[in-house]
């Protein structure tokens, strides 16, 4: 398979995670103290590197069939989870993830917390907040890179996609010195949900023993079909919402 879809999928997925990590780091660094924030980030990156070094090669030793079943199931579950949230947000059933308000929440909490020196770190609050933010979002990046890269036998392309996303988001963050509120995060999440669900379904079924019609080319059909299914869900929920909001009109129509 061409490496471009792999690079683009990993790029978009990792960009979403990087935007969320950037919001936490900026809120902490600007409000509290940059030194402890950078220390927290650095320790999180070291932990991520250790996890990647331990898990990455170990995955390479697993038989491909077993790997595809497990990774396929995980990606499909993960993807459906993202799709579910994105559809609920797109239809107003769940509040949109707003980076500006997330940033304000972090800033308020950071301003209220007391400064405490611990284990050689001058501001423990900044350190732990940056550490947790980068580690949690980073874990998702590592998961995406390893699963996509290993299944396509092209870890290099997956790493390029992830690195490009992190660099792009970091540079954008430095340029605007504020959370990236203009990023259409929900639509990006929807796109990532579509890709994760499609790849997960494809690999999972392949690992379970099926032969896809057209082999790898089946993905070219599966991705748009999943996207159409998500679009249909959005349309269906919007219709339901309008119908629920105007029960009188609906009963009139039914009554005719």
């Amino acid at each position: 398979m061409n490496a471009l879809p792999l690079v683009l999928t990993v790029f978009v997925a990792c960009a979403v995670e990087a935007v969320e990590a950037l919001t936490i780091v900026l809120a902490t660094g600007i409000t509290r103290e940059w030194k402890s924030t950078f220390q927290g980030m650095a320790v999180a990156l070291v932990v991520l590197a250790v996890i990647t070094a331990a898990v990455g090669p170990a995955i390479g030793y697993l038989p491909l069939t077993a790997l595809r079943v497990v990774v396929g199931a995980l990606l499909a579950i993960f993807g459906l989870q993202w799709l579910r949230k994105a559809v609920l947000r797109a239809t107003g059933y769940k509040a949109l993830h707003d980076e500006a308000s997330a940033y304000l929440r972090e800033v308020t909490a950071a301003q209220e917390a007391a400064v405490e020196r611990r284990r050689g770190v001058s501001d423990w609050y900044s350190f732990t907040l940056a550490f947790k933010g980068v580690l949690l979002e980073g874990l998702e990046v590592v998961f995406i890179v390893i699963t996509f890269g290993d299944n396509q036998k092209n870890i290099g392309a997956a790493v390029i996609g992830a690195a490009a996303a992190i660099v792009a988001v970091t540079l954008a963050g430095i340029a605007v010195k504020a959370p990236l509120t203009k990023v259409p995060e929900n639509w990006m999440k929807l796109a990532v949900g579509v890709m994760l669900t499609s790849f997960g379904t494809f690999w999972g079924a392949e690992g379970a023993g099926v032969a896809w019609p057209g082999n790898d080319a089946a993905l070219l059909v599966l991705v748009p079909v999943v996207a159409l299914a998500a679009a249909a869900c959005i349309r269906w929920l919007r219709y339901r919402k309008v119908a629920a909001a105007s029960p009188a009109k609906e009963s009139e129509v039914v009554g005719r």
Partner: protein
Amino acid sequence: MKQLKSFGAFWYDFIIGDDWHVAALIVAALALTALLTHAAHVNAWWLLPLVAFAALAWSLHRATTPRK
């Protein structure tokens, strides 16, 4: 014990998310696909996508239907 619980809760939330039914349906569909393919020699490539769509629609329906 508390740390172990929060560690477990983190991984549950990370992998399973808001609706465990979706995860259960995907795992069951994969098992059924393997069974159909290996035991009944049916190339059931269509099963997992169908279950995935049904699981998504069902989960959305449950999430947006007011509880009585």
